[in-house]
């Protein structure tokens, strides 16, 4: 049943039962009423009911369509982390294309986005696809399709003078790496270069609209202890089959904990996260902090990721295991962890359909002190945050 646009824009709950077509209609309606674009932002967090029970592809469809709509509505700052996340780490052409289009909704072009666009080129050029945002869930054949690379290079062109710093690399793509691109994409690169060169505006270093590190959030260390009894008692099972409570592991020393699952098929996410965790462990050793800090990786998929799977996954990525360095599944009450950490994840049945990159630095009470979400975290930066907890007296409790 088609609803009126006014009804659609009125505050109405969207949940797992809302048909995708209705969601698409809402997005289209917001496109025609851009002042309501915050509605779109509210539809982006992975954990909301909207994505519950949907397949991974359905989730991609919805999110890609939402992101693409920002080109029309304008891109609010609150949506930027989602856009950057897709450009930096995304491997699905529809989402990456949507993110590239979203950037063209910025009030002011900024050179800050250039590295993200280049990263997206590298991520997507092996797995680009024909797609369209002209309508939702299109039927094929479609003759006027676009591609993720097309949208990325159009955004370069849109940036104009703000992308002057990109010219050497764009020219390298056009010259030394021309064989890696089809003729239409080479034409887009050429057009982007022309637009950048011919834009008479002054390139400025302004990036005031953008936070310095959109993925980093530092929590107040003075925050009241809000860890409920429920999280303390959550039973964890490690890669060796040993069980202990959350409290037992995540207290008395600061910890660095990441979330992942073994069936993740985006190598920029879980596989890289756990590989970097292994490198972080090495860095802890090199800085003689062993015994003062703990590391942990907790699976989103506790029913499937049994201890032998955790162990194999970690070992294959260089993780070393010890009393202070483990991989876990929550034997029961994963929901408790999900709530406590406000995890950016959702599921179809028990299978993950979407998640973000997330790392938490916990103090010696197991409280969240710092979060790194969506974007790739820097190993040294994470270690510095953990060391700061040690020097602030948040060390061994």
């Amino acid at each position, binding site marked *: 049943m088609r609803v009126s646009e006014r009804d659609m824009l009125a505050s109405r709950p969207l949940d797992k039962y809302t048909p995708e077509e209705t969601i698409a209609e809402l997005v289209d309606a917001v496109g025609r009423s851009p002042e309501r674009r915050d509605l779109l932002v509210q539809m982006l967090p992975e954990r909301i009911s909207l994505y519950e029970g949907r397949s991974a592809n359905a989730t991609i469809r919805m999110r890609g369509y939402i992101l693409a709509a920002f080109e029309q509505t304008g891109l609010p700052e609150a949506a930027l982390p989602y856009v950057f996340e897709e450009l930096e780490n995304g*491997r699905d052409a529809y989402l990456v294309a949507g993110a590239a289009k979203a950037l063209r909704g910025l009030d002011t072009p900024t050179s800050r986005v250039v590295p993200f666009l280049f990263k997206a080129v590298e991520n997507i050029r*092996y*797995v680009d696809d024909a797609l369209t945002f002209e309508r939702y869930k299109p039927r094929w054949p479609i003759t006027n399709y676009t591609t993720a690379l097309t949208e990325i290079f159009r955004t370069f062109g849109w940036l104009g003078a703000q992308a002057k710093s990109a010219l050497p690399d764009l020219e390298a793509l056009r010259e030394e790496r021309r064989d890696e691109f089809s003729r239409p994409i080479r034409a887009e690169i050429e057009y982007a270069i022309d637009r950048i060169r011919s834009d008479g505006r002054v390139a400025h270093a302004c990036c005031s609209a953008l936070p310095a590190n959109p993925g980093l959030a530092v929590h107040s260390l003075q925050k009241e202890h809000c860890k409920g009894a429920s999280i303390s008692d959550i039973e964890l099972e490690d890669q060796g089959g040993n069980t202990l409570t959350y409290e037992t592991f995540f207290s008395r020393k600061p910890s660095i904990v990441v979330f992942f699952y*073994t*069936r993740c*098929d985006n*190598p*920029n996410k879980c*596989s*890289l996260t756990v*590989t970097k965790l292994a490198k972080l462990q090495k860095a802890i050793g090199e800085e003689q902090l062993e015994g003062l800090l703990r590391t942990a990786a907790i699976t989103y998929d506790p029913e*499937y990721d049994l201890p*032998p*799977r955790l*162990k*194999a*996954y970690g070992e*294959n*990525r*260089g993780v070393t295991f010890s009393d202070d360095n483990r991989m876990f599944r929550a034997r029961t009450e994963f929901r408790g962890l999900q709530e406590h950490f406000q995890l950016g994840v959702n599921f179809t049945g028990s299978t993950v359909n979407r998640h973000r990159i997330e790392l938490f630095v916990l103090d010696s009470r197991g409280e969240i002190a710092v979060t790194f979400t969506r974007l790739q975290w820097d190993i040294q930066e994470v270690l510095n945050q953990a060391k700061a907890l040690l020097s602030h007296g948040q060390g061994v409790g």
Partner: protein
Amino acid sequence: MRTEITIDGADSAGANYIAWAPVHSSIRLVDADGGADSVDVLLRNQNPSNGGQIVFRDAIPGAEQDTLRLRLPADGTPVDFFIAGKFRHPSVADKDAVIEVVEANTEDVLSTNALMVRIRKNANELTEDERDRFLSAFAILNGGGNGRFSAFRAMHREKTQDEAHNFPGFLAWHRAYLLDLERELQQIDPSVALPYWRFDQPAPNLFTGEFIGVADNSGTVRFDPGHPLEFWATDGLEGITRTPDFVTSGPNAEAATFTFEGNRRLVMNEARTLRLGRPEYLYARFVRMEGDPHGAAHGSFVAGFITAIDTAAKDPLFFLLHANVDRLWAKWQWVRQRFDTTNPATYEFLSNAGDPGSARVGHNLNDTMWPWNQVTGGDRPVTAPGGTLAASPTANAPGPMPTVGDMIDYQGVINSGNRLGFDYDDVRFEA
């Protein structure tokens, strides 16, 4: 009185595995009887009509002989010699190739050494025991999806394809990949060698429920109950899908073929493949075999994991397919004598990435190869699964981080130190 033979490359249990390429050895007398300054001995095969056979040389270069007479000093000074597997006489079981040393005049047996002439063979011609040992080791490596095999699967994905495909190092990369896998299988069972699927010939003994499996009507591969690969899993998914486009078993079994609407096209045969690169037989033209027969062999299935780069390594058959691709390169190398890495006919990109005229990084002669070099980021993939290349007691080469060039003189024809420790049943060693 007895003799003691030391053969280079013994494993931790003292077991020796050799192929066609010569291996340095030495022999000495122990507890010699008093009197004579030296003793003449004969080295020979204990069972000349069964099992693997050894040939002997007293020097390299030198003619190979079925028996070797040596004079051994009574004081126990070792005497050098060389052994190799006798071409076309590989072992069929572990340690079935026995060197017997006898006193030349009396025929008294002074010592025996049991080795294996371990050779990569045509999968269609394996004995049941050879087949089952291979499959058992492979199943353990897979570990029901939780084993080390998942690293090998992760190395061959759509997103890592530039490391291994479409650039000149295609053959070298896959040679290293197969060697790494084979060595890990040998850590489980040292008697295992990777067999090859000779895709330009029918292979009815390969496509059976006892070996690589038979597809049912929906394209899911079925194994006989109790088959080691019964619990094969990759990426959280049980089983294998594979639908051949040709008759695989029975008296009408065919070579790999495309079939479409009554028309048929065989994958390029060996003779045609070995003529690639003519008239100068340059590697730069030979490597086009990546399209055909390599790509064509993948494409001779209408459905299943093996039909796409991203999923091909989920099917064990993939490794047998690539073993044949590697064998074709090895044979071309022998026919055209392409082992010298200073010769552009052997390999066209003789320098390093970044040099003028060089190929993509990872594809120049002196470039180390991902993932074994553990380089990530930038032009390389974000992770490097599996670690460095597995070591082997039988050969020091190619080292944990091989270069493209390290994979070329695989038999040690130019320099014995380059020997990688494997050979194919129908590609001989020629010094």
